């Protein structure tokens, strides 16, 4: 599924990058070293961290996009880094838990389960 489809369903706001990429799987967590080892290529990464290091980790892990939960937006340095590294970042007022549930529901309906 494309990030843009998910974005429309969850009313996400795009902060950076192109949401046309397909995603596959989700990781949720805020410790960067954990994320570094657990985020797989093409994953969505849900976090409340918004510093430039988040962008570095997303770029290095080939995450499809970062979704900032709880209405968090990028710090100016991170916004700049996201633009330079072409990392797709979106934000949502929902909590990480609510995002995971909603994404799971969408996945299920999309798969016709």
């Amino acid at each position, binding site marked *: 599924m494309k990030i843009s489809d998910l974005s429309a369903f969850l009313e996400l706001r795009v902060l950076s990058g192109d949401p046309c990429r397909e995603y596959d799987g989700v990781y949720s967590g805020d*410790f960067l*070293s954990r994320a*570094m*080892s657990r985020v797989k290529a093409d994953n969505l990464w849900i976090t409340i961290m918004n510093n430039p290091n988040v962008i570095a*980790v997303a770029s290095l*892990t080939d995450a499809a996009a970062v979704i900032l939960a709880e209405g968090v937006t990028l710090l100016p340095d991170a916004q700049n880094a996201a633009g330079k590294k072409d990392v797709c970042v979106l934000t949502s007022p929902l909590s990480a838990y609510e995002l995971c549930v909603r994404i799971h529901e969408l996945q299920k309906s999309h798969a016709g389960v």
Partner: protein
Amino acid sequence: MAENVVFHFDIDGEDFSSAGGASVTVKKKLRQLGIDSEQIRRVAIAMYEGEINMVIHASGGTADVIVSDHEITIVLADHGPGIPDVSLAMQEGYSTARDHIRSLGFGAGMGLPNMKKYTDSMKIETELGRGTTITMTVNIT
């Protein structure tokens, strides 16, 4: 590849906003060299963790990456305080990072374990008060 390709970086200490820059650059260069994406990912993760460690604990250092026909070698050298107990530092979850470092999302105690996990070999040479050199390799298959 007829000759080894070598990259050198100076890692700026305490500069968290640009930390990881060398790893991102290496990732791009390895892509250009046609290295397998999973091997690039492993190098990027291991090097990023090392870079962050040097910024957090050692006021920076140097990173050298050597790409040969059969392996990628990463050498991270610093003149920081050294690691008092390497086996303890290798345990997942053990961290000496201060609170303000943790508030940035670091300090999960996964740095060295991740570096070992994602490489084919890792050697740590450390001396208290003198510094640490970590040499890691990722095999090219």
